């Protein structure tokens, strides 16, 4: 998706990464507030530090004088970090006052952000909250007593389904279960998901698919286990105890041996008759897999790359196995 950033966003980003004077890239030593926030789902993370001018008697009167950031993220994430620091320094805020700098202020400062990038500006606010919390601890300020609610809206990480409101698949699924949501309108009313552009309603992996998935799983959990597949299946090489279920083209013979016994017989024939013959020419054979009466082999050593490898297998290995184990065996060279 091509960039539709404002000139301001592009300029801030470029100034910041080129270290233009007056920009805020970096980390303060001995900060008064330190906060980190990272979202793996979006691939961005931020470390935010600030220093204050300390009020002589009342810590809540501290004023932020410097703010710096380090950001791992896209163009808009770095520009939003720059915007946050500028707004905070210019505002002459106390740490608690700085919490008023909102996502919307940042977007406005940037001259707007593309819709799908709005969430990049949220990261700054969360790192700021963490730093203010850290400052409060250092300065012995009881934020709760001040009525500051630092409960961060924990967003479950994962694939973003509703892009308009940046809501992830795990979060929406959790809410579907917790709130017993059964329809798309119910989801939208409860958590906004799907309320704006509506493109996630019936997209593959969208809201309807998630509803189906959550409730089907829940409905099935209460029932008897799903019926066992009636499809014929090959048993794996070490599938001792698996039922013999011959497949197309290989009718079950009168000697009804298990796949395990069968593969043992093949291995025996290989080590007894075939391998010695190949090894006498400096080659070797590896059984890759056995399915029903199909034996998959790989020739190694001197035989590998030998132009006659295919013929060697077909003529010698297959004939030997037919003679000694089962005449229906077919050998496939891997």
């Amino acid at each position, binding site marked *: 998706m091509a960039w539709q950033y404002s000139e301001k966003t592009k300029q801030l980003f470029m100034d910041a990464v080129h270290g233009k004077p007056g920009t805020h*890239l970096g980390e303060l030593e001995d900060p008064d507030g330190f906060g980190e926030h990272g979202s793996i789902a979006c691939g*961005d993370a931020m470390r935010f530090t600030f220093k204050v001018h300390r009020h002589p008697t009342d810590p809540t009167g501290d004023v932020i004088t410097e703010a710096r950031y380090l950001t791992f993220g*896209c163009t808009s994430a770095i520009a939003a970090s720059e915007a946050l620091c500028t707004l905070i320094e210019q505002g002459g805020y106390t740490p608690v006052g700085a919490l008023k700098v909102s996502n919307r202020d940042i977007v406005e400062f940037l001259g707007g952000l593309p819709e799908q990038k709005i969430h990049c500006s949220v990261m700054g606010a969360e790192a700021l909250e963490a730093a203010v919390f850290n400052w409060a601890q250092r300065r012995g300020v009881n934020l709760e007593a001040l009525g500051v609610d630092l409960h961060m809206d924990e967003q479950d990480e994962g694939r973003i389904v509703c892009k308009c409101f940046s809501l992830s698949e795990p979060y929406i699924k959790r809410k579907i279960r917790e709130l017993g949501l059964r329809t798309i309108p119910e989801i939208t009313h409860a958590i906004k998901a799907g309320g704006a552009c509506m493109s996630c309603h019936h997209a593959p992996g969208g809201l309807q698919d998630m509803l189906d998935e959550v409730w089907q799983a829940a409905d099935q959990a209460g029932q008897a286990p799903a019926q066992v597949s009636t499809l014929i299946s090959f048993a794996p090489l070490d599938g001792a105890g698996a039922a013999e279920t011959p497949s197309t083209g290989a009718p079950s013979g009168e000697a009804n041996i298990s796949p395990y016994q069968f593969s043992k017989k093949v291995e025996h024939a290989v080590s007894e008759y075939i391998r010695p013959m190949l090894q006498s020419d400096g080659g070797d054979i590896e059984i890759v897999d056995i399915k029903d009466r199909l034996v998959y082999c790989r020739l190694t050593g001197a035989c590998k790359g030998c132009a006659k490898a295919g013929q060697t297998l077909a003529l010698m290995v297959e004939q030997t196995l037919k003679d000694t184990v089962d005449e229906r065996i077919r050998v496939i060279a891997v």
Partner: protein
Amino acid sequence: MTQIVYADNNATTPIAPEVFEAMAPYLTGEYFNPSSMYEPARRVADVVAAARRTIARAFGNVEPKQFLFTSCATESNNTAIFGTARANPNRRHVITTRVEHPAVLGVCKELERQGYEVTWLGVDRQGNLDVAEFIRALRPDTLLVTVMHANNETGVIFPVAQLARLTKETDPSIVFHTDATQSVGKLPIDLHGEYRYVDLLSFSGHKLHAPKGVGALYIQRGTPCRPYLIGGHQEEGRRAGTENVPYIIGLAKAVELAMAHLDEEAGRVRALRDRLEQELAARISWLEVNGGGAPRLPNTSNLSCYYIEGESMLFQLSDRGICASSGSACTSGSLEPSHVLRAIGVPFTAVHGSVRFSFSRYNTEDDIDHIVEVFPPVVANLRRASPYWDQVKNEPRPGPWLEAATQR
């Protein structure tokens, strides 16, 4: 205006002048419907037939009628997969890989929703499939195997000829499809020779210097595959809709040119790519070539720069006239990082920091010089801004936060 260095040829390619020239008459005077009865229409029908022959020749001189023209590789893939499923209602198992293009991945997921069972084969840290695991996945109820020829992100080549042979030797009724969108024009594909076990093969024009909006699907004679677009008798009923004549002419011309340049692709283009990787590796620490240990397309270089994010790299590259792409979440439109790099096991901080350069025969040594000059400072700028990077020591900054993010 800055000079453009176009290094995103796996996304799309510039149209070859010869292709445009070949198409031009059919966009103007020669507008007739090849299905019509009069003389000018017959002329147009003849050119379409000739285009089909040109393409068939490029794939080992197979029977031309086995190629039908589509609107894009996505349509070819949809036709191949859904068409096979509808033609074989008794089989309900599909084998594919975790690293397919969304045009196959999405279709297989849709089949899964419809009740089909899909085996998703993984890849190792280099991007290679395990052939033994592939064999184990084949079952008596397997309907279709769909495995891409070359990966669009990393360029890693799967041994499609071998997998197709193993499939058909195991059970000739299993249909083998390959999405060859990235390999056609870059690797030789002989459907009479080594690749004769392939039943269905998709590709598109705009990856090989034809315009967007045209693709093709090879359907080996006798392969059970129901049509996807139903209507008129075009393409013998296998794909209804009036033939996109100018684009079909363009596709044939592009395929013809690509075949003439195959050696250049394997020689000069590969040398450009290799030089880029060597020079960047000498200048950038914590740089990894994704898929570098596997057989790869000669034109593709997928690089991970640890601890920085790709979108902000692309933005700076773009500012200096370089067009490339990234597997970072912020460039995907879905906010998810590349499923291909995740399947390979590239850690998150390196997935987000991936950049893909993909070249074509139109790239030059000067292009490489320009990237080598511009890219290292771009990486340095962002590492200076990264909380995962120690700006003083110029190396990754250890810490629990970093480790948690790296391992996830």
